[in-house]
């Protein structure tokens, strides 16, 4: 679960990481009022769940109440499409306005999980403010990593080494070190998959301040952090994604595709997308109904696919394991009863109770072509759409 900058900064404050003075505004009038309370120079930032806000116009420096109000009214209510938002658009419902500081230089700090080392990793770079993937590619040596032992925790000697490589002097070293320890505390105690500060600024050569704040709580750990669930901002997802999420479906809309896919298992889902592509057609989505899907869940999955106007053909590929095919078939029929959309379907059903499932589907009035297996499905897609 991703948090907004302002929510992450609230957490930062609790853990005593230094952040600029700032306020959340939901109207342009508030932007103006808060500007007057805060500083002579402020930054107006769109609160959306996508990186790359700056380049997309979601961050503006303002130097007067009027500018603040203008920037606020321009942003609020509009949608932002950044280079990191993968085609989607994010509505700006909240603004974070904060004092602009005199930045000497910008660092990058992140804590995430390193799956190869099988432990948390602290990543520090002198190239803050930039897209870190770009830095990693162009200047790999400018990225320093520190691995955290699961038993010992974050070792001070490793942090000392990390800080000393920056050679910023004792005072800044101490602040940086303390910031790293606090950020790690957040990462550890909230089961995060990411805590990122980019940029982590050196302000007036004497203090370290987190100008941005990104916290992502690991979805699988949310059961341990029920109090954080209220921070979830539904507005940052489109209705379809939100529906999928609420039904515990793993769904990703893919633009420019025409084949709606409903598959169980991520691997099989990806395989299904791959053969669709090989058959010359683009998949319209990734949709994994998961291991143990109920009738309702399948129904919702069917509705989600049908609601996508790009979809010309639906490919269902289910392999009953924990999932029972007959349950799935009932879900599809239910979904069809509600949507009444007769999009042609190619259906591959195998494994647990697949025969019962076929009977159920044959007795419905859906436009179904059965395929024996994946190769057969690939042929039938071409037959359907190829001509």
């Amino acid at each position, binding site marked *: 679960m991703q948090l907004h900058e302002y929510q992450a900064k609230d957490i930062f404050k609790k853990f005593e990481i230094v952040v600029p003075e700032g306020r959340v505004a939901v109207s342009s009038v508030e932007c103006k009022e808060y500007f007057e309370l805060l500083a002579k120079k402020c930054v107006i930032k769109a609160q959306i769940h996508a990186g790359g806000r700056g380049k997309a116009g979601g961050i503006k420096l303002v130097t007067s109440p009027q500018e603040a109000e203008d920037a606020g009214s321009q942003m609020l209510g509009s949608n932002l499409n950044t280079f990191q938002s*993968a085609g989607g658009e994010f509505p700006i419902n909240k603004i974070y306005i904060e004092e602009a500081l005199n930045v000497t230089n910008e660092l990058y700090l992140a804590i995430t999980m390193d799956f*190869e080392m099988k432990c948390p990793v602290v990543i520090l770079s002198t190239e803050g403010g930039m897209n870190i993937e770009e830095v990693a590619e162009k200047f790999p040596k400018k990225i320093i990593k520190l691995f955290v032992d699961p038993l010992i925790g974050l070792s001070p000697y490793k942090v000392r080494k990390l800080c000393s490589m920056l050679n910023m002097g004792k005072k800044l070293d101490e602040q940086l070190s303390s910031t790293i320890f606090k950020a790690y505390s957040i990462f550890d105690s909230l089961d995060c998959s990411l805590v990122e500060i980019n940029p982590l600024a050196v302000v007036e050569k004497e203090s370290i301040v987190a100008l941005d704040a990104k916290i992502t709580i690991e979805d*699988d750990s949310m059961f341990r952090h029920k109090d954080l669930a209220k921070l979830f901002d539904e507005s940052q997802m489109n209705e379809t994604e939100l529906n999928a999420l609420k039904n515990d479906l*793993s769904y990703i809309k893919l633009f420019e595709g025409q084949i709606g896919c409903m598959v169980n298992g*991520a691997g099989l889902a990806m395989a299904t997308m791959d053969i669709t592509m090989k058959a010359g057609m683009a998949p319209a989505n990734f949709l994994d109904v998961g291991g143990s899907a109920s009738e309702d869940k399948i129904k919702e999955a069917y509705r989600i696919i049908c609601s996508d106007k790009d979809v010309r053909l639906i490919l269902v590929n289910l392999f009953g394991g*924990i999932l029972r095919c007959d349950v799935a078939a009932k879900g599809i029929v239910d979904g069809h009863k509600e949507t009444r959309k007769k999009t042609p379907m190619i259906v591959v059903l195998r*494994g*647990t109770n697949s025969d019962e499932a076929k009977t159920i589907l044959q007795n419905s009035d859906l436009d179904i072509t059965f395929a024996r297996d994946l190769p057969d499905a690939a042929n039938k897609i071409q037959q359907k759409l190829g001509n």
Partner: protein
Amino acid sequence: MSILNNDSNKVLIQGLGRDGSFQTEKCIQFGTQVVSGVHPTRAGKTFGEGVPIFGSVEEAVKATSPDIGLIFVPAPFALDAIVEQIDSDIRTVVCITEGIPVSDMIKVNQYLKDKKTRLIGPNCPGYIIPEKNVKVGIIPNDIVSSGEVGVVSRSGTLTYEAIVQLTKLGIGQSACVGIGGDPIHGTTFVDVLEMFEKDKNTRAIVMIGEIGGTNEQIAANKIKDEISKPVVACIVGQTAPQGKRMGHAGAIVTGKSALASEKIEALKNAGVTIADSPTEIGLKVHNLLK
């Protein structure tokens, strides 16, 4: 002998909810010797045809001496169940549960280091040995056939796909192992490749990988250096957009090495036969064995 063959192949089941019970029935139907169940509040009762249920793994082990533990408990309790089975020195633990927090799996991974237990999974379909009638997990019973091809895969349902293709072409399996889709998992490609290499019942190996991580590259290195048997590999997610999560937590495209193309390249260099499309796995094996 086949791979993952324990002294007795007696199985303990932990977690007897709807899915656990249903799947355990299927294991028993396949011929697996399920000797005990563990459920905190159903101790003293039985399930299926008289399999006794115990309140703890310790008691179940004392009474029924299983070699293998199969875990279906929900994610919030999975760390504890895995640790409980490790603490009872169960030789092979298969964890089907999906959605276990990464931080929990980091602890498990560390905890396993000086223990005797082999963990398979989590978020995996387990394994099946057709010849021995041993199934520990959820691979569908009726798709497998006994033979000489070993299958190892990160994906559950895609494993079934591969097995179906093999069986349809009359190619049986020595064993099929799903190692699981989570970024941190117990038994790895390399572990299973090693087992298949040593196993006299296995003539060829099918390996099914995914985008994300570098496990396929590590496997490629292993194959190059130490695996003499022919390997057919398929990497799915070639058409997945970068930076998007594709269901499996492990299947995220991060950095170049996580790309399907990089993995395929590494495997080709190791002399592996690549099935370009998941539809070709069976055929490639068939051609190889001709």
